[in-house]
């Protein structure tokens, strides 16, 4: 083989939000860029997402929420990973997220937050950089 390592990432939809257009598009774009992608489907609890990330041994977790519940839910995913000694898996997120929440989310351990209109290339680049770390 000797080729590049294949990175594994998880795309998760925590909470009750059913808007999965963005999550699915990103999952597919990542696959097209050579990532292995686990997509959780909608309406998962933070605990379910953290457990899936650990069991699937992923390099990065990407979360999507458009219902305004990102503060609670993104934070809980970070905490659930910590609880299971998997805080080395970086968490990033995206959705309808106001500027002021982004700072707070970063303080709580979310590495990066994307808002609507972000070019796909930039998102993929972030996944790759975090995987390489």
């Amino acid at each position, binding site marked *: 083989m000797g080729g590049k390592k294949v990175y594994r990432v998880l795309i998760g939809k925590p909470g*009750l939000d059913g808007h*999965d257009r963005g999550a699915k598009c990103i999952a597919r774009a990542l696959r097209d860029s050579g990532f292995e992608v686990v997509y959780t489907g909608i309406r998962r609890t933070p605990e379910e997402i953290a457990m899936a990330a650990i069991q699937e041994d992923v390099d990065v977790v990407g979360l999507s929420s458009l219902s305004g*519940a990102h503060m609670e839910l993104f934070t809980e995913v970070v905490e659930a990973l910590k609880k299971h000694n998997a805080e080395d898996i970086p968490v990033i997120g995206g959705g309808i997220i106001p500027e002021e929440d982004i700072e707070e989310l970063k303080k709580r351990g979310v590495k990066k937050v994307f808002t609507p*209109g972000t070019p796909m290339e930039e998102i993929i680049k972030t996944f790759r950089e975090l995987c390489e770390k």
Partner: protein
Amino acid sequence: MSVDPRYKEWEDKVLSKVLARFPERKKEFKTSGGLELPRLAIPDEIDDNYMEKLGFPGQYPYTRGVQPTMYRSRFWTMRQYAGFATAKETNERYRYLLEQGQTGLSVAFDLPTQIGYDSDHPMSKGEVGKVGVAIDSLADMEILFDQIPLDKVSTSMTINSPAAVLLAMYVAVGEKQGVPREKLRGTIQNDILKEYVARGTYIFPPRPSLRIITNIFEWCSKNTPLFNTISISGYHIREAGSTAVQEVAFTLANGCTYVQTAIDAGLDVDVFGKRLSFFFNATTDIIEEVAKFRAARRMWAKIMKNRFGAKDKKACMLRFHTQTAGHTLTAQQIDNNVVRVALQALAAVLGGTQSLHTNSKDEALTLPTEDSVRTALRTQQIIAYESGVANSIDVLGGSYLVEQLTDKIEEEATNLMEKIDEMGGVIAAIEAGFIQRQIEDSAYEYQRQIETKDRIIVGVNEFQSKESVKVPILKIDKEVENRQVKRLKEIKNNRDNTKVEKTLKALEDAAKGNENLMDYIVEAVKEYATIGEICGVLRGVFGEYRD
């Protein structure tokens, strides 16, 4: 020039009856320069082809509109979708909107309500009051409609899996206000099939869900005859990424499934068929959208008449609500969204919509503020009162381009519907993942076009500018959830819990059998059984769907 006999016949038999009952807004309609505007422009010669494809408004196949006078008698209903935090805050927003000239209500429920969880359920954490108002029991619903007379307004409720519960609560609030059931006007979305492919607020598997929907059709025809029992929705399918053709095809295919299920249950298509309504998206691609609305009307008329044997003309009419396209709003240069919404709203009006929601410019960032909601409503009012497009009917009808596109959309959507039929119908197509895949492919292609600049989005991938505008944010703070949970506790302590349990047990037994569930749900609701308790009983009997 002599008047065409078929036009004359329409004037005598269709138009005159309606004019007698609903006079037009003005004696005569003129352009701003004083030129007279005809009610309906028609070709010099009316041939069989014209009659078959277009006909006259209010006449089969309704391509040119469902009413013979359209907006000359009454504008579309201006209905802004709203709801946030608790019933109290939302009630205040409704009364504000009604004061501003809005003509109908549209309730946005939060996700726990839409998925049948009480506010204190573990899955509700963080979601209470966020995308809509939190409703746990009748007590919340009473506050939601406080000082809003239900015999005067029509209310649309975006509720699907638990539609029966919210309808029961609405009926109960009406009773408390002294408004009899048969006078209540409104719409419940009640369209579960699109939830499995696009919107995600399903609870039960498809088959029991269809039973509840059929129960609602039957119960409403006897109890709330003015209520639209369903709003068969393409809106969310389009938001999830579909094309216009797919939106029409999947929506009408879903419609066929509901109609067939109800007919199989022994209901009369000419009775329940009149209370079906639709809900479509309006994007900025004006001409395609106008063609889409016209094609959908013609297709549904033919389907109801030819496939299902409907004889009542009202059962053949596709009446629809429109919302402007949320997915086209940008977080960049948000003032541009006002322009997008105006174009989209114009498309809906040119397409003959019965009611309209215009999005607010800030919705790619936050829940809309009061100011931005007002501008969105004003956009509709400007189209209605200033643009003049509401003074004649189907003003783009007869345009070579619009007619060609209308035909094309009908043809392609019909082909796609046939494909679904060949697969064994919508449920089989959902189970095979066919519809979901079609939507995903279109969404991905759309995104690819943006990335490669095949599709320009002003302010996003072209004409960007450095901005540092502070957008006012409407935030639902954590206190809302705490307050709602506390309130729920109080309600549970203050009601007659023995009676609650009795009504829930009766509902459970009914769900296990074949009875209509509506009366049981109404009884439970009146005892202040919560939405979580009622849906919990049904979850126990019907099981849960998971994608």
